[in-house]
């Protein structure tokens, strides 16, 4: 904890007090081409690269002590109204190239110290080898994020990726172990590009086990077209680990500053086990559709608006979610009055599964407005984001200030206020608010 705090204070003082650069008017006489040549030569000669960032993030959580998820999280005792947490992360990225062969790796070393948890771990996010005999043909083997879909906050067609955190969708994801082959062809005329990607995804007890049933080799494929200036993708996932699913997405600029995009996914024979208010599961099997429509609009004053509507066909209805919350309430009351933990333990298990995932219900709106460099402050971007659960009317509001005071240093101050009635998604989350400062130094 002391090390983390010390590092935070040092970084902050350095960021705020150190001069941003040698002051003085720049003219073309100050530009030395030979220095730039030397810098280029350094990047050209090396077959490898190594970089990353060091990040410190203190976070203050304000708890909602009556919320269902708070009761499940702090069953053994009340931890108070607030808690602080300090995350220190080292991200390393490296690559190596030799001829048609290349290697890439991305890993995090993370230590968390705080009032609630203390842990350290190392995560390999990606690590794969590539063969690229021609620009139109490539094969990747290893742990890789495949990145399918056009949505900003959600990607219902990302059949072989982990879900994004819609409250922070630009965070790097951890990949799955895959064998992926890709062929690309370019053309003249309205059809400019055709690309086909085939992905083999094994699932075993120790490999990609989150994807579903073990001992299967699954196949996913995607066909991409750039047709009439529109990005079009069609996807398929099939195999024994998950039921077969089909997907389609598109993106297009209607005008230079107005983009629209969408995704559609059909998941066949999807199994859902919602519980009633007594915690009894009901198995339902059906073909379900998920889809997303969105837009991105840039105004003349450089305000960017992103809006997305997400229909989550795999999610619970409002009534099913209310039943779960009622089950938590009665199980908690039973535990506190009789000491019988059976019901509450079952509720905890359910909360660790589908009920506790981000955005577990059916309909959501994502809205974000960001203003680039207001008041002529370069490298400063304020933003306001909200995710609204359309089913129960609860929502989260996330104001954010991002500033880069000097090259390679980025500060982000962020808050989150969760608003909702009892038995609504955001009303029953364990926190009422969150305040975080992220200090990130790239190297």
């Amino acid at each position, binding site marked *: 904890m002391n090390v983390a705090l010390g590092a935070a204070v040092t970084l902050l003082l350095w960021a705020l007090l150190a001069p941003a650069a040698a002051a003085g008017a720049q003219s*073309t006489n100050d530009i030395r081409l030979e220095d730039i040549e030397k810098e280029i030569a350094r990047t050209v000669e090396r077959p490898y690269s190594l970089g990353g960032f060091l990040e410190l993030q203190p976070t203050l959580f304000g708890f909602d002590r009556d919320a269902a998820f708070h009761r499940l999280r702090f069953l053994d005792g009340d931890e108070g109204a607030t808690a602080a947490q300090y995350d220190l992360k080292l991200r390393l990225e490296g690559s190596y190239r030799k001829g048609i062969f290349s290697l890439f790796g991305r890993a995090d070393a993370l230590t968390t110290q705080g009032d609630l948890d203390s842990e350290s771990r190392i995560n390999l996010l990606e690590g794969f080898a590539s063969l690229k005999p021609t620009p139109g043909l490539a094969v990747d083997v290893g742990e890789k994020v495949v990145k399918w879909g056009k949505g900003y906050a959600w990607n219902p067609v990302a059949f072989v990726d982990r879900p994004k955190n819609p409250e922070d969708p630009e965070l790097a994801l951890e990949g799955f172990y895959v064998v992926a082959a890709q062929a690309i062809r370019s053309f003249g005329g309205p059809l400019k590009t055709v690309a086909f990607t085939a992905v083999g995804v094994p699932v075993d007890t120790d490999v990609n086990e989150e994807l579903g049933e073990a001992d299967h080799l699954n196949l996913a494929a995607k066909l991409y077209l750039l047709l009439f200036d529109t990005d079009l993708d069609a996807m398929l996932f099939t195999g024994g680990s998950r039921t077969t699913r089909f997907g389609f997405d598109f993106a*297009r600029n209607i*005008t230079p500053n107005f983009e629209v995009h969408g995704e559609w996914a059909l998941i066949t024979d999807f199994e859902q086990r919602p519980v009633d208010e007594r915690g009894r599961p009901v198995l339902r099997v059906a073909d379900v559709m998920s889809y997303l429509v969105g837009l*991105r609009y840039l105004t003349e004053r450089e305000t960017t608006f992103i809006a997305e509507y997400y229909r989550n066909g795999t999610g619970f209805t409002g009534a099913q979610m209310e039943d779960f919350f009622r089950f938590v309430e009665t199980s908690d009351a039973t535990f506190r009055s009789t000491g019988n933990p059976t019901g509450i333990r079952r509720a905890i298990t359910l909360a660790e599964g589908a009920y506790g995932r981000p955005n577990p219900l059916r309909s959501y709106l994502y809205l974000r407005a960001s203003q680039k460099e207001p008041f002529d402050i370069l490298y400063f971007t304020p933003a306001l984001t909200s995710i609204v659960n359309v089913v129960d009317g609860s929502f989260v509001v996330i104001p954010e200030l991002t500033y880069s005071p000097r090259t390679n240093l980025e500060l982000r101050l962020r808050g989150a206020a969760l608003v909702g009635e009892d038995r609504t998604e955001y009303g029953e989350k364990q926190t009422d608010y969150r305040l975080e400062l992220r200090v990130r130094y790239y190297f």
Partner: protein
Amino acid sequence: MKIPLIAIAVLLAVSPAAALDGVDILKKVDANLQPESFESYRKLINVEPNGAKREYLLWTLKKGDDKIASLFLAPASEKGRGTLRLGDNMWLYIPTVGKPIRITSLQSVVGGVFNNADIMQLDYHVEYDVRAVEEQGGEYFLDLKAKSTAVAYDQLKMWVDRKRLLPIRIECYAATGLLIKTLYFKEPKAFDDGRVRPSILETDSPLYKGYRSFMVYARIKKRVVPDEVFTLDFLPRLETMR
């Protein structure tokens, strides 16, 4: 009979319309600025009113009239970011974020006075019609109008060195007539193919008072790569072409 014909020919030869073909001048300017297909290394420098600087190193591949891809090599915070332009389509690839996202010509991936259209500039004659051309001392003046509303600047006023057929200064206007920025072409030098081109592009803008940005061309070399390099799916692999 021969005399009137000769007279007409002489008249045509000396008339401004015959002497000044704006489209021809613009195409020559484009050819002199950069080869049709090439790779280049550029440094972008943003200078704030207090003298503070921010520098970016880019590697760029261009092919034909409508294909251009760039990769950020420095600073570390931007390293690995890629941009792709296919005609009016532009995408930005950020390694940790999902698929490349569509961006617009008026945005700037680096902040400062240069926007995406400046960084991923296609040949001028591809995007602009010549509305008028005239001689002004040792310079040509070209009045250019965007061919479509997808082009970043609706109108350009370009002053061209008559001898070298290279631009000296370009004023960029919005459809409303608002001056968005002025580009100054400076420090001509011989590049890898022996051609002399401006090595520094400087810009200022009444919208960013006191701020200036420089684009410094360190290397420009003819290079033709397959069309498949300029595709969305190849963008994450762009580094392998260096």
